[in-house]
């Protein structure tokens, strides 16, 4: 199935209104968005200090706001992430705290607040098993928290190394390796070799490794975990790869190397990139557009190359801050969040 052959378009399914300020990020619930017979759930977080939970009705197929998580964060909620079990939602806020919310059916309760960062928390990410959380902040540090019993969270590690604001943290999809990207133009890889909780920075991907020449905003892994895409203020997307088998065998650290740079496709900062399960990379940029890229599958000595599958101009009326593919199989749904205060649900479909 060669996607480039098909005549595909990104169709706007629905526009979710409700937030009263820019929407920074969206997150699909990993469990309910995949299981059959269960309605997909999406969380969105905003400059209006709240998080909204949206659910698709199984009858009408339309999306409504199920609940609003408010009166906890006192400033912008910049990022949100569901735990792998789908039971907990972590919310990272400019007020310096990270909220942990538990899903009690129709209501969400804030069961814990993680404090420690000096200033704005920019991103939060759960590891694959849900045993640990990572947060990062403008204070240049990355904190790792351990999930304990009874809604308790312990500070497991504080990682310093970035020389500027850390924009995003992302755990590897299968292994306990943490990635962070920053305003200092680098991506750092953190790993605990003896698995004893002592995390070290094992690699820094900077300009000398064919890295970005400006702020790196976002990191996303493919399903196999052997490739990742990063996007930047330098108007490029970069694809990185590693020898995943070597890493998984546990012998030693397998470094990430630059595979490919997608340049010339964007003329504004790329704020978000997300790699779908069926290998389509979506990007959201400061020109209000969403672009989709696929592997050209051309065998080349120089490594993989990517083609632009389609570009959706004016996807939003302002900067696109976040794009996220639904984890569900087969439906190819994409959620996007923007400075225009909207969340949109899109479907990648064949043109009629």
């Amino acid at each position, binding site marked *: 199935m060669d996607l480039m052959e098909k005549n595909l378009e990104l169709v706007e399914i629905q526009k979710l209104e409700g937030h009263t300020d820019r929407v920074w990020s969206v997150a699909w619930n990993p469990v309910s968005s995949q299981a059959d017979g269960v309605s997909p759930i999406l969380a969105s977080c905003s400059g209006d200090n709240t998080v909204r939970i949206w659910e698709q009705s199984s009858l009408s197929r339309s999306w409504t706001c199920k609940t609003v998580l408010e009166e906890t964060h006192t400033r912008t909620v910049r990022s949100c992430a569901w735990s792998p079990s789908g039971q907990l939602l972590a919310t990272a806020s400019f007020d310096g705290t990270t909220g942990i919310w538990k899903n009690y059916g129709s209501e969400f309760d804030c069961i814990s607040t993680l404090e*420690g960062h000096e200033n704005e928390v920019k991103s939060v990410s759960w590891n694959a098993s849900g045993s640990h959380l990572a947060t990062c902040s*403008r204070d240049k540090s990355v904190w790792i928290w351990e999930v304990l019993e009874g809604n308790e969270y312990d*500070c497991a590690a504080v990682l310093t190394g970035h020389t500027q604001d850390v924009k995003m943290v992302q755990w590897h999809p299968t292994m306990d390796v943490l990635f962070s990207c920053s305003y200092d133009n680098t991506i750092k890889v953190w790993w605990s070799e003896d698995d004893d909780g002592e995390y070290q920075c094992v690699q820094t991907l900077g300009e000398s490794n064919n890295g970005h020449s400006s702020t790196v905003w976002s990191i996303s892994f493919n399903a196999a975990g052997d490739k990742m895409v990063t996007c930047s203020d330098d108007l490029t997307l970069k694809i990185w790869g590693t020898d995943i088998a070597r890493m998984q065998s546990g012998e030693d650290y397998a470094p990430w190397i630059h595979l490919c740079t997608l340049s010339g496709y964007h003329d504004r900062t790329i704020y978000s990139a997300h790699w779908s399960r069926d290998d389509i990379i979506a990007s959201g940029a400061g020109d209000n557009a969403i672009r989709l890229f696929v592997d050209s599958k051309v065998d080349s000595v120089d490594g993989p190359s990517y083609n632009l599958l389609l570009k959706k101009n004016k996807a939003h009326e302002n900067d696109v801050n976040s794009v996220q593919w639904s984890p569900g199989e087969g439906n190819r749904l994409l959620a996007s969040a923007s400075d225009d205060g909207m969340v949109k649900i899109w479907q990648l479909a064949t043109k009629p």
Partner: protein
Amino acid sequence: MSSGLNEDFLDCIVRLEETHIQQGFDEGYEEGLVSGREDARHLGLKLGFETGELIGFYKGCSALWNSALRIDPTRFSPQLHKHLNDFHVLLEKFPLLDPEDEAKDGIKDDLRLKFSIICASLSISKKQLEYKGYPNPSSNLDF
């Protein structure tokens, strides 16, 4: 020699303005030294007090936590024991009597971070402990 004397003789007329400027400068400099020393004394007292207040606060917290540790060592995780020990070592290392020591700011930043980690590990809010006037991080020039 005589031409040298002539130039000097004329000089004091030609350079009259310069002489006045120099005199004014010298007087101002002397007065400046006096008021400058006074300002420096006030600034020194202020900064010295703030540093003393900060280190005293940290030492108080450290002493309290270490006493709790002595009463019941099993209550805290080994990781926390290590953090408290690191905190104690940093405090001992702080050059309290040498304000010119350049390592001072680095140790202050490490202390601040260690303090945050210990509070987070104990699940207590830093804000509950911080005294009024607890300083902000040393490098605030972020955008």
